[in-house]
């Protein structure tokens, strides 16, 4: 099947895209920025936030570019006065029902609402009137849910259904009182939620936040280091968030295996790194009690004892357990050490367990 191409103009820039591409995708290709909240390339198209509206010649109203398919010869204006007015108004409407606590919000600095308000110069206070006052949901150790900050973009709903396949949260109530909740409006902890946090990963504002991470560091303070999860054999990638030489959290990156999806262990199971139980110094057992030792002492003793057994009983009186938790390099070195230095093939690990 041949892919037909479509040529259109966006802000007077001519761009050619494959048939079926949306105006938003075409704009991206043309280098024209269009703001979005509810759009996520990995999730089904939703068209709800209406931030990405554009003006298209011959089409009444301002269609949402994320769900409008580009057609041949289409003339799109992505920044016309009507578009600007619409986007500003949408932002004002969102801000009119949003706690303006950016000073203390953990998502500050990584919040689309904040970014776009800045971009469009939208001040707060355009509309007085009712604001929601939902209680903060803080009864689990993983996620803080503040529905007052929710802009109802529905990304979490779709992530739960389409990435995690669990559909724990859904829209409930109508109109202004619409809210995203687990069934029967219970807390996540009281639902069947597995706290994978994939909803947190897609939330564009501060409604869903990693509990510990967002209290440990401002978003701009952390350095992100992409690495591989140390738990099961799936090999999920994620970003370690580092502040002051400490791992303060885990966030999704775009992993080759997992995309942004993680499980509860990958996303929230990093606390062991700085746990006080960590071994921080070599220990030598003297009279049944561990005593702190220097590396030289400990290494020397190990070398001496292993050498002694080898000399006295032969290489096959020694055995080594390597680790399915350590790196390839370390496993390679340990088997090299076992075979070349200790002189035995008695090396194994718990592959069978």
């Amino acid at each position, binding site marked *: 099947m041949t892919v037909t191409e479509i040529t259109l103009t966006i802000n007077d820039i001519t761009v050619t895209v494959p048939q079926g591409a949306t105006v938003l995708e075409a704009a991206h290709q043309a280098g024209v920025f269009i703001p979005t909240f509810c759009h996520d390339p990995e999730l089904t198209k939703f068209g709800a936030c209406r931030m990405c509206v554009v003006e298209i010649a011959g089409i009444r109203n301002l269609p949402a570019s994320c769900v409008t398919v580009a057609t041949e010869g289409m003339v799109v204006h992505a920044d016309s006065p009507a578009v600007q007015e619409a986007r500003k108004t949408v932002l004002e409407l969102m801000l009119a029902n949003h706690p303006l606590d950016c000073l203390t919000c953990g998502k500050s600095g990584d919040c689309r609402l904040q970014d776009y308000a800045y971009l469009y110069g939208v001040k707060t206070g355009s509309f007085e009137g009712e604001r929601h006052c939902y209680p903060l949901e803080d009864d689990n*150790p*993983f996620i803080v849910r503040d529905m007052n900050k929710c802009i109802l973009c529905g990304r979490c709903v779709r992530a739960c259904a389409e990435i995690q396949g669990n559909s724990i949260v859904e829209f409930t109530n109508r109109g202004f009182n619409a809210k995203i909740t687990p069934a029967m409006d219970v807390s996540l902890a009281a639902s069947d939620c597995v706290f994978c946090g994939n909803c947190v990963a897609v939330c564009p504002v501060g409604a869903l936040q990693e509990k*510990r991470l967002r209290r440990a560091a401002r978003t701009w303070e952390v350095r992100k*280091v992409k*690495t*591989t*999860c*140390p*738990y*099961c*054999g*799936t*090999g999920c990638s994620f970003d*370690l968030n580092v502040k002051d*030489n400490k*791992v303060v959290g885990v966030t999704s990156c775009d992993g080759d*295996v997992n995309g942004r*999806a993680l499980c*509860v*262990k990958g996303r929230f*199971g990093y*606390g*062991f*790194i700085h*746990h006080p*139980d*960590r*071994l921080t*110094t*070599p220990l*030598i057992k003297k009279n049944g009690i561990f005593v702190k*030792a220097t590396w030289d002492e400990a290494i020397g*003793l190990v*070398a001496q*004892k*292993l*050498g*002694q*057994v080898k000399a006295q009983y032969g290489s096959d*009186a*020694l*055995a080594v*357990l390597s*680790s*399915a938790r350590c*790196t*390839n*390099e370390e*496993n*390679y070195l340990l088997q*090299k050490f*076992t*075979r*070349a230095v200790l002189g*035995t093939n*008695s*090396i*194994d690990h*718990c592959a069978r*367990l």
Partner: protein
Amino acid sequence: MTNSIAEIAGADFILAIGTNTTEAHPIISLKAKKAQRNGATLVVVDPRRTELAELANVHLQLKSGSDIALLNALAHVIIAEELWNNDFVAGRTEDFEAFKAIVAKYTPELAEQITGISAETIREVARGYARAQKATILYTMGITQHICGTHNVLAVANLAMLCGQIGKESSGVNPLRGQNNVQGSCDMGALPSVFTGYQAVTAYDQRAKFAKAWHVAELPARPGLTVGEMMDKAGTDELKGMYIMGENPVLSDPDSNHVVHALEKLDFLVVQDIFLTETAALADVVLPAASFAEKDGTFSNTERRVQRVRKAIDPVGNARPDWQIICAVSAAMGYPMQYATASDIFDEMALLTPTYAGISYARLEQGDIQWPCPNANHPGTTYLHKDKFLRGLGKFNPVEYIPPAEMPDAGYPLLLSTGRRYFHYHTGTMTQRTGALEVHYGTEYLEINQADAASLGIADGDMAQVSSRRGQVKIAARISKVVPQGLVFTSFHFPEVAINKLTNPAKDSLSKIPELKVCAVRVEKAS
């Protein structure tokens, strides 16, 4: 895995056997769920009604340890109804007739008696698997942790070959590895019989190659001891010294009491770990290691994907990366190992390992690579056995059903199975210390069926005493529909519930994997 994780989503028939995927491999389960949402048939074979079983189109709730009877019966139906892939069997395999002869007696009716699954259901599943465009089999320890574990795996492979459901995209035999780098540890030769890339220590040429590269005169030719054998030999004083890096056999191995006893008898034990584990507590010297966040390196995941581990922070305290510790010990023993970086080690390994030969840190910066990757221009391999098997023709290895080593009897009337929980991991060394996971899921429990609990006078939440011939533990009971009558289940994540005190160390004679999925126990209400 013969296929990649992503390919699971493209299958139209998934046979998940002995895998509690949503809990033990959550992200892989997402692919299976996605396939099902796209219309694939999901068949789950498990004695427990796990979350995945609940989702499944068909749940085959077989009796523990009866997998071969089921798998052979599936093959029986496929042969009897002439649904097998004639071209594949003729062109790509050998010894089909022997296989055919063995499975001939495994009628669905016979299998029904052994497995407890109705003959008609077996027929339906067999037809579904055989007729699927892309059928894939997922399995984990539910298949392997049996005394017939190797045979279970062979039975799975036989079924896949029979239908030609292997060597295709989204279609193959896919064991899901349980630990982040268990694949890599095997690939790296942390096994008693092979060097890196499964090059046999018994082969002279291989030994010579490694000896030359490592600048030693010769390398031992006789395969070494497996972990179980090590414990046995330590118990009998034949083994005098052990070096354990990042393992906790006291909790993870069957019959913990035996393991503790064995390790205590050693003349010298050095343990290198990030925590003072139950095993480290027995050591003469404990060496503090860096965690994954504190070092560079690579892991190889279950789909043979080589992935970078990157140093994010300095090691805590005086801890050091394991590789640096090994180098130091080696140097102290008169064999200096000089590596500036983990990348240097990888390069040395890749030179000696054909399957990794084309991989380097520089390439991994551009993205992960799945081995085999024989040269620097090779893109890596997403699925195996495309045109031929490693050994050439795929060999049918007919296997017979044997019951588990220890079955319930009057003294120990219930069957205990062990496995993992979603919120925890392995021996709990890490997940019990996160400040989050153990807060949410803080105590372990024993899943027990309502009928069993009632007959034992145990109510939900009661403390139960669980005993086997090898030991006993106390644990809270939770009445659950997940387990059928006669089966109890718990995890091995909690040191305070050291369930491996009870499990049976009876091993598969080939792989030496212990039968952790089946042992006979007695459950009583604890006073």
